[in-house]
C-alpha cells in the first residue's frame, strides 16, 4: 500500500504533536550545547504548519511538502528554519504532483531532503548535527529498498537508524552549528537537531504503521 497525501497530512500532524510534546526536552538538549531554543523553534514552526495545511486535504504531496517548507522558512528562524525548510522544499520538489508514494518515491524524497540540508548547511556526517540522524536513515532506507521490504518496514528501519544516529551524536565533537563553539565540551551531549530529525522520521514510521 503506497503512502497517500492523506498519510502525509497525518504525518505532519503527528510530527507537530510530537514536537510540541518534546518542546521542553529539545530545549533542554539545546541548553547543554546551544542556546535553549530548539524546542520552541520547532514547536512554533510546526504549529504554523498545522494552520497552513488545515484546508489542504485535496493537495498533492509535492504541494503539501513545499508549503511545509516555506512555512518553516517563514516562521522558525535560527539554523533549523532554513535547514528543515530546505529539506521539506526539496522533498516537495521530489514529489511534485504525486498523490501517492511508492517505495522508490519515499527514498527519493528523503534523499532530496538530506541533500538539501547538506547544501544549505555546508555540513556532512560526523559534525554532530541533524545530518547524523538523517544520513543513517537514508542509508537504511536504501538498503531496505534493495531488500524489497514493504513500506512500513522500510520506514521502521529508517527511524531505527535515525535513532541510533542521534545517539551517536553524544560521542561526537561538534564542528558545525552553535555547539561547535563549545569545542571539546560538546562531547557527551546529544544533538538537539538530530533528535528532532529522529522524532520526525519516527512520526512517519508510526503514522504508516498504524
Amino acid at each position, binding site marked *: 500500500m503506497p503512502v497517500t497525501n492523506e498519510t502525509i497530512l497525518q504525518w505532519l500532524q503527528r510530527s507537530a504533536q510530537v514536537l510540541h510534546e518534546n518542546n521542553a526536552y529539545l530545549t533542554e538538549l539545546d541548553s547543554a550545547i546551544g542556546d*535553549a*531554543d530548539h524546542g*520552541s523553534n520547532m514547536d512554533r514552526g510546526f504549529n504554523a504548519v498545522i494552520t497552513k495545511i488545515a484546508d489542504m486535504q485535496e493537495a498533492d504531496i509535492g504541494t503539501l511538502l513545499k508549503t511545509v517548507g516555506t512555512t518553516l522558512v*517563514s516562521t*522558525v528562524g535560527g539554523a533549523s528554519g*532554513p535547514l528543515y525548510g530546505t529539506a521539506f522544499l526539496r522533498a516537495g520538489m521530489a514529489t511534485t504532483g504525486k498523490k501517492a508514494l511508492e517505495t522508490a518515491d519515499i527514498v527519493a524524497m528523503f534523499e532530496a531532503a538530506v541533500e538539501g540540508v547538506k547544501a544549505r548547511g555546508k555540513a556532512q556526517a560526523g559534525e554532530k548535527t541533524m545530518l547524523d540522524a538523517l544520513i543513517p536513515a537514508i542509508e537504511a532506507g536504501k538498503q531496505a529498498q534493495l531488500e524489497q521490504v514493504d513500506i512500513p518496514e522500510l520506514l521502521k528501519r529508517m527511524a531505527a537508524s535515525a535513532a541510533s544516529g542521534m545517539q551517536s551524536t553524544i560521542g561526537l565533537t561538534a564542528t558545525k552549528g552553535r555547539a561547535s563553539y563549545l569545542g571539546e*565540551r560538546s562531547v557527551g551531549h546529544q544533538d538537539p537537531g538530530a533528535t528532532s530529525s529522529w522524532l520526525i522520521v519516527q512520526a512517519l514510521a508510526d503514522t504508516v504503521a498504524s
Partner: protein
Amino acid sequence: MKKLINKPEDVVRDTLLGMAGAYPDLLNVDVEQQIIVRKDAPVKNKVGLVSGGGSGHEPMHGGYVGYGMLDAACPGAIFTSPVPDQMLAATRAVNGGAGVLHIIKNYTGDVMNFEMAAELGAGEGIEVVSVVTNDDVAVQDSLYTAGRRGVGVTVLLEKIVGGLAETGAPLKQVAELAHKVNSQGRSMGMALTSSTVPAAGKPTFELGEDEMEIGIGIHGEPGRRREKLANAAEITEILTNPVVDDLGLKAGDEVLALVNGMGGTPLIELYIVFNELQRILKGKSISISRSLVGNYITSLEMAGCSITLVRLDEQLTKYWDAPVQTPALRWGR
C-alpha cells in the same frame, strides 16, 4: 524564572510595541512584519543598512536604527535568527536606490536566513551585498567549522559604516569599509551567571558561586571553559590578552575600546573593568582614543562582560565621530 514579561511568546511583540511608543520620532515599528525601520526610510540614493538577529541582545539591533547608523533591524525570537521574510521586508523598506548592505553576525542560522533573503531581494532587482562579522577570539577560526562568532564588533561596525553611508557613498565602498572594520576588530566575553530564555523557563546553564564561564558568546550559551572566579583585574587580563594578540596590536596603536555588559551587570562594574583595561593597554603603550562603556550587545539578564577592541585609523575615527541619532547611541545631533 523572574522577569518583567507577560507570556514568553509575547516578549518580542510587547517589546516592539514598547519601542514604537518610546521612539515615535525615530522609528517606524512594524509589529506585524517584525521589523524596525528608520523613520525617514528609504533615504534616497543612500545605501540602506540592514541588520538583525535573535532578540535578547538589546539595545542591539533595534536600538541602533536611525540617522548615521542602521536603516532597519529585524529582531527574531529570543536568541533565534529572524526569518528571511523579515529581512526581505526590511530590505525593501530601506532600498533608496543605492542598494542594501546586510550586516550579519556569523551564526549558522543568521547566515543562512540572510542568504535566503538576499536571494529573494536580488530576485526583486534590489542590489544586496552581505558582510559577516566574526570577531570572537574565544572561538578558533577554521575553514572546517562554523568559524568565529560575530559579537561586539558588530555594534561598532554599524556605527562606523553608518557614518559613511550617510555621506551617500556607493554600496561597494560601504561594504569595503564594513569588511575593514571587521578585520580590525576582535572581542572576547565572560559570564558570571547564566541567562534564562523565557520559553525555556530556567537558566541555560548552572554555575557555582565561585565559578565563571570564559569565552561565551551572546546567546546565553556556556563558554569555552569554566574557571574559578577571579577579580576584575584578572578577568580583564583574561579577556584582553587574546584580543590584543589576535589583532596583533603593537605599541603606538590607537584603539576604540568597548567594555560591554551582558545585561545583568551594572554600569559600576563595567567602569571598573574599563579601568583595568586602560591599565593593561597602557602597559603595552596602546592608547584608547575612543571608548564606549555600557550594555550594548547583551544576553538577556546574564551577568558578565565582553571586551572589544578595534584598531583605529583616520578613516575609522572620522566615521565613529560622525553624528548619530538612534535610541541607544546618540551624539552630534
